[in-house]
């Protein structure tokens, strides 16, 4: 399972970076989204995958029996998803405004601020 997820993470990074290097701002935002999904999956995988062992203390037992699934990465991912959601929403509104004001979705046309 780890290997499958590792490949998925790598694939998402590759796709995200490819999209970010395109000239359209819509694709840029999609790329950023893929990148943040890849990061979330990577944290999930780094927390070690253990199936069917929730971190619950069995009735009568004093402590958790190893191995058990670590709940913390999920809490981290949840936070990261919420943050990512807010940032994505902002980014979508931003590109809409940019398209309205600049009149193009081509990043190469947006270099007025870099001119001497």
């Amino acid at each position, binding site marked *: 399972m780890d290997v499958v997820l590792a490949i998925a993470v790598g694939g998402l990074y590759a796709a995200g970076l490819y999209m*970010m290097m395109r000239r359209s*701002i819509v694709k*840029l935002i999609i790329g*950023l989204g893929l*990148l*943040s999904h*890849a*990061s*979330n999956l*990577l*944290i999930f995988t*780094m*927390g*070690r995958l253990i199936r069917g062992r929730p971190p619950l203390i069995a009735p009568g037992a004093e402590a958790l029996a190893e191995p058990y699934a670590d709940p*913390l*990465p999920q809490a*981290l991912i949840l*936070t*990261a998803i919420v*943050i990512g959601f*807010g*940032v994505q929403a*902002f*980014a979508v509104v*931003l*590109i809409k*405004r*940019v398209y309205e*004001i*600049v009149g193009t979705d081509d*990043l190469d046309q*947006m*270099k*007025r*601020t*870099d001119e*001497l």
Partner: protein
Amino acid sequence: MRSLLLVLPLLIPLSTAVLGLLIRRKPHLQRVLATAGAGLLLTSGLGLLVSVQQGGIHTVQIGAWPAPFGITLAADLFSAIMVVLTGLIGLAVVLYSLGSIDPQRERFGYYPLVHILLLGVCGAFLTGDIFNLYVWFEVMLISSFVLMALGGERAQLEGAIKYVTLNLMSSALFLVAVGVLYGIAGTLNMADLSKTLRSTPHPDLAMAPAMLLLIAFGIKAAIFPLFFWLPASYHTPPVAVSALFAGLLTKVGVYAMIRVFTLLFNPQAHGIDLIILVASGLTMITGVLGAVAQNEFRRILSFHIISQIGYMIMGLGLFTPISLAGSIFYIAHHIIVKTNLFLISGLVFRLQGSYHLKDLGGLYRKHPGLAALFLTPALSLAGIPPLSGFWAKLILVKAGLEVQQYLIVAVSLIVSFLTLFSMLKIWNEAFWKSAPEEHLTSLPQGNRLALLLPVLGLATITVWISLVPETLFSLSEQAAQQLVDPTEYIRRTLGD
């Protein structure tokens, strides 16, 4: 009392922002509230600094969850100094905004956004948990995104696209690094991480998150070759926003870098210090050469932020107590001077209606006071004795000579000459040469005080640091001592 002092720099901007959003439709009340909030933040920062200096490192376990399970807030001297600077810049910028921000931006929540930004910056300085640091970075970023784009002018939006993209990229890398660190060490508390990473059976494995963090913070701090978003965006928003960003945001990246590479990783292992030193030299050179080619007031200043970041990183790369003290001194000096220069560029724009050097001129004859106000931070930036930048550079050069890193010392000296050249370029063009046309106006009467007071105040602080550098230097030295030997930090955080 101690824990209250530690939480106040977060509570004050948070409540100011929330109240500000509630009274969004009452601009007058908002202005009063924003100023009071910034003033209180500065006061609480000063209180924290005094308390930390007398009582050592302060820590609070949020929700009384014992470390390393809960979130820890920790303030050593370095954090406390940074919080004071945040309060100072916050107050200066809010005052300046009173006289310069248009009613439309005010209606769309300009002041609450500034305070959310200050909240994020203070949080990043005070947290003792690396995931929490990520969250504070995001708080800071999202409010800076909105401030950057607020107003929706074409240049602003173009700048915002680049700013948003590269900063989100850096956040993603930061998040990955946090995940990998958790995978290796099984903890997120920085003091606990410091202990675990020192005794990890796989020290080489820790290099992956170390490099990821170097790049993530490198993008935020705008070091070579990751700085391109900065000169593309910092000159686009209103000048108060530019000044706030220029003063604080990149320095949060530098702070995080110094924190991580003193507490978590040992830069002298695996040659990280060499990477940082090379990056610092190249950052100084590219920044200053970039500035030479520019002819727009704020773009010149933006490129100088980059070259100055190189000096701050140089102290980290040399990694001796005195060089770290130099870095901290440099950060303090730079935040004050750079914010002031941006505010002055705004005054010049007010007077002549342009940021382009070719349209400016004759300011020395009409406004000699403003010219003197410009020269103080400008010469300080270049490092002319006896101004504050001279002392900052002197400490770093001395630290470099002590460990025989002659090359970086030579680079830093050459770069400071080039800085002088480009400050004199602004001086000659904007102040000395005769005005291209006689369209000099004077500052509007009504908000003159709001515009001039922060500039005067920051210039006074620069002069004070210049004349009495011992105060700040001994503070920086003690802060550096705490950074070099983190045992006290770890003991106070984990409580054993």
